[in-house]
């Protein structure tokens, strides 16, 4: 490490601190991220998103610049610049009054929106962020294609159809099962009532003397419970039910 052998005790300590700060303060440069390629339709707006990562604190001197290089052009022009909390938008060129600043450097966001897209906006957009002293780093480029209608991507319709149909089938199955379940439950309660009636009828055979003056009660109850099976069954068997209810 090149430490003199006869150095004092403090010296290696100082050296190691120096070394560690050098290691801990990474020389990683600022990193800028954008999409690779975006598609827009004529007349619509599109967001050119740009985020970045810097190891330094976001200083007040941070600057964000967007450059534009037309599809068949060689030169790139600046269309947007942000510095010292102020943003400056191209107000002479082809992007006049079409750029909107939606980024926020404190959230590491340098995105802009281009309104009212034209075919001449086809080209490469470069996002460049400098966060002094963190200024070393690559810029990031995104290519914009302006279409009359955005073409369908491979697998888009395919996925949509498969997903949609499967979802519909699943929902229909679920509903069918729910209905069947409810129906079975109703059927089961009906069955239980019927069997209760049967039991009652059997018991009724013994003491048929009470039968006469209990009939009105039975009818009232039947109307209420809407048992629409064969009506004679009700009048015969329902009696027992009413008796059971009374008990």
């Amino acid at each position, binding site marked *: 490490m090149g430490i003199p052998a006869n150095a004092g005790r403090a010296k290696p300590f100082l050296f190691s601190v120096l070394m560690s700060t050098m290691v801990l303060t990474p020389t990683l440069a600022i990193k800028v991220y954008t999409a690779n390629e975006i598609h827009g339709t004529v007349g619509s707006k599109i967001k050119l998103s740009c985020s970045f990562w810097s190891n330094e604190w976001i200083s007040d001197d941070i600057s964000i610049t967007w450059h534009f290089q037309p599809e068949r052009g060689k030169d790139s022009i600046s269309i947007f610049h942000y510095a010292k909390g102020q943003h400056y938008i191209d107000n002479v060129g082809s992007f006049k009054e079409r750029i909107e600043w939606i980024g926020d450097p404190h959230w590491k966001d340098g995105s802009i929106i281009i309104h009212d897209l034209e075919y001449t906006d086809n080209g490469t957009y470069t996002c460049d962020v400098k966060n002094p002293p963190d200024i070393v780093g690559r810029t990031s480029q995104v290519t914009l294609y302006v279409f009359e209608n955005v073409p369908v*991507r491979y697998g*888009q*319709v*395919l996925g949509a*159809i498969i997903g949609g149909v499967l979802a519909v089938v699943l929902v229909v199955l679920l509903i069918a099962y729910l209905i069947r379940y409810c129906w079975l439950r109703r059927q089961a309660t009906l069955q239980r009532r019927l069997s209760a009636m049967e039991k009652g009828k059997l018991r009724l055979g013994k003491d048929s003397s009470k039968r006469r003056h209990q009939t009105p009660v039975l009818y009232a109850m039947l109307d209420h419970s809407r048992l629409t099976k064969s009506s004679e069954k009700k009048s015969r068997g329902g009696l027992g039910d009413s008796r059971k209810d009374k008990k």
Partner: protein
Amino acid sequence: MLLLLLGIIVLHISVLVLLFVSTIVSQWLVGNGHRADLWLNCTIPVYQFRCITSSTNEWLQSVQALMILSIIFSVISLFMFFCQLFTLTKGGRFYLTGIFQILAGLCVMSGAAIFTVRHTDWHPSTDNASFGFAYILSWVAFPLAILSGVIYVILRKRE
């Protein structure tokens, strides 16, 4: 009974095989030194095949989706059949199995129909291409799938 069961399963599996073959094999359209399917567009030059991915046309994608759906439905149906074979009460019908198989048949039918009507959208009609065997297989799979679906619905489970 066992023979009937075997016959049904064989029919179902043959439908599945037909569906798989017609979905995968690159023989939907064949022309002079050129053939295409749902996924690839191949030319047959002197040395070797050269294939490019097919276009992203919406109709072609829907044909792809319908073929895949029919395979999925048919597989689900086969699965359901084995489930219902063991769980169904005596005398019950294989409704669920049949419905899925009929759905698979309908999917194949609509896929093949769309392909018939719309294939000129993504394929230049200049080189007089004719339909290949994978296309015909998909049309064969349609009535077979419907048939096996109907058999499932009619069939009652015996012991």
